[in-house]
């Protein structure tokens, strides 16, 4: 794995050095640990020492919330997804069984980003019970499992064996779970109707959901949505990011710049 970390990045690092950040992961001051984990992810410090220290932090017992959550584990799991080192995969798979919902959520997202097919069985496990089990936990702002993140990861990992498990979630009462299922079903089947459904979601009334649909369309690189993305009533930053997803998808498929890719860039230029 080639390191993204270079001297050039050092100018951006806001006070910490790599050595300090790694040392801070073991600091007696728990807030320094928490910040260091975030910092290593933010600046994509994927040196072996940083990755190793973050993997250790996935098992941290010191940093606990009143409700029993593990803040440091959450940040470490998020950071490891950004660092692109697959050594983190086994530790992240263990995190899928953590009591803390947010640790499971971060781990699912990072496993999707790390392109880790070995995580597929453990991710599918979290969908056990189907839509009936996917209900809100009383007193908490979330469902029993991080369904949207798990389903998105399975889509990204091309888990075709999960299609029948994911499909019922198209009818989940929560829109963001529906969108996650729609996005994954598109990735797993390449059926246009799923892309169209996400494109229609750009016309919805809720700004947060329009942003989610934008990010889903970017993630699946759904080219027919390009004009609708550029027109959508959402901040330009979100639209640029979605169009970037479309563009990168085109670049992956074709060696040279296609007319489609150029049209996407023209739209991006108009949003600057």
């Amino acid at each position, binding site marked *: 794995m080639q390191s993204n970390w270079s001297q050039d990045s050092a100018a951006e690092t806001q006070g910490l050095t790599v050595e300090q950040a790694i040392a801070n992961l073991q600091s007696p001051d728990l807030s320094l640990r928490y910040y260091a984990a975030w910092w290593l992810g933010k600046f994509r410090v994927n040196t072996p020492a940083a990755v190793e220290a973050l993997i250790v932090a996935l098992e941290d017992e010191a940093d606990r919330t009143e409700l029993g959550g593990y803040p440091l584990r959450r940040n470490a799991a998020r950071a490891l997804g950004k660092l692109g080192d697959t050594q983190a995969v086994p530790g992240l798979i263990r995190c899928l069984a953590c009591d803390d919902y947010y640790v499971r959520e971060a781990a699912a997202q990072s496993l999707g980003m790390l392109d880790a097919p070995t995580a597929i069985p453990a991710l599918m496990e979290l969908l056990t019970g189907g839509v009936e089990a996917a209900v809100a936990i009383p007193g908490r702002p979330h469902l029993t499992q991080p369904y949207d993140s798990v389903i998105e990861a399975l889509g990204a990992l091309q888990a075709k064996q999960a299609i029948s498990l994911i499909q019922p979630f198209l009818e989940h009462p929560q829109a963001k779970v529906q969108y996650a299922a729609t996005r994954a079903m598109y990735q797993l089947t390449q059926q246009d109707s799923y892309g169209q459904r996400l494109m229609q979601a750009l016309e919805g009334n809720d700004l947060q959901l329009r942003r989610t649909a934008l990010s889903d369309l970017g993630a699946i690189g759904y080219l027919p949505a390009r004009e609708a993305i550029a027109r959508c*009533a959402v901040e330009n930053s979100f639209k640029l990011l979605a169009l970037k997803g479309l*563009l*990168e998808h085109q*670049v992956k498929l074709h060696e040279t*710049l296609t007319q489609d890719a150029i049209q996407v860039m023209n739209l991006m230029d108009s949003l*600057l």
Partner: protein
Amino acid sequence: AAVKDLASAEVAAGISTLIAVLGYNNPTAAAAAVQGLIQIGSLAVQPLIAQLDDYNYGARAYAIRALAAIADPRALDILLASAATDFAPSVRRAAAKGLGALRWSELATNERSTVQTKALETLELIIKDADWSIRYAAVVGLQGLATTSELQIQDKFAQILATEKDAAVRSRVQLAQSQLFRTTSD
């Protein structure tokens, strides 16, 4: 003359109203106001600069987009500063794009190259930014500058490609190269 004064007073009041709309946090209204300001053109430049909203980056991004599209070189200093140091990426992107599109012909010939070099230096600075969208906008600005100025900067694009890792920014550099090559060989 009285009618003319009245007309310009109305234009001035209209400009102020349009600029105020940029800060209403209403994207549809703001987009319409930007179009209105662009149509007014040069008369709107000084008011846009004077009324730039230090506290509302959304309003500032709209104002900078209007200034970029009007392309009056009096906006140069505010575009340079916004591209380099504004904390809001949306403002920086709009300014970077605008730096490539100013109407240099409105400046005295002896001033032009100094001023164009300033624009180039700022774009070269932000082409190293950590945020891909700022780098993308800098490429758009550089392509504009290569087209509108007398500066010879074709080589810069190859230099950017040598180190740029982001696929979208790389694509935009390649598009710039293909379009610049086409126009110079015509």
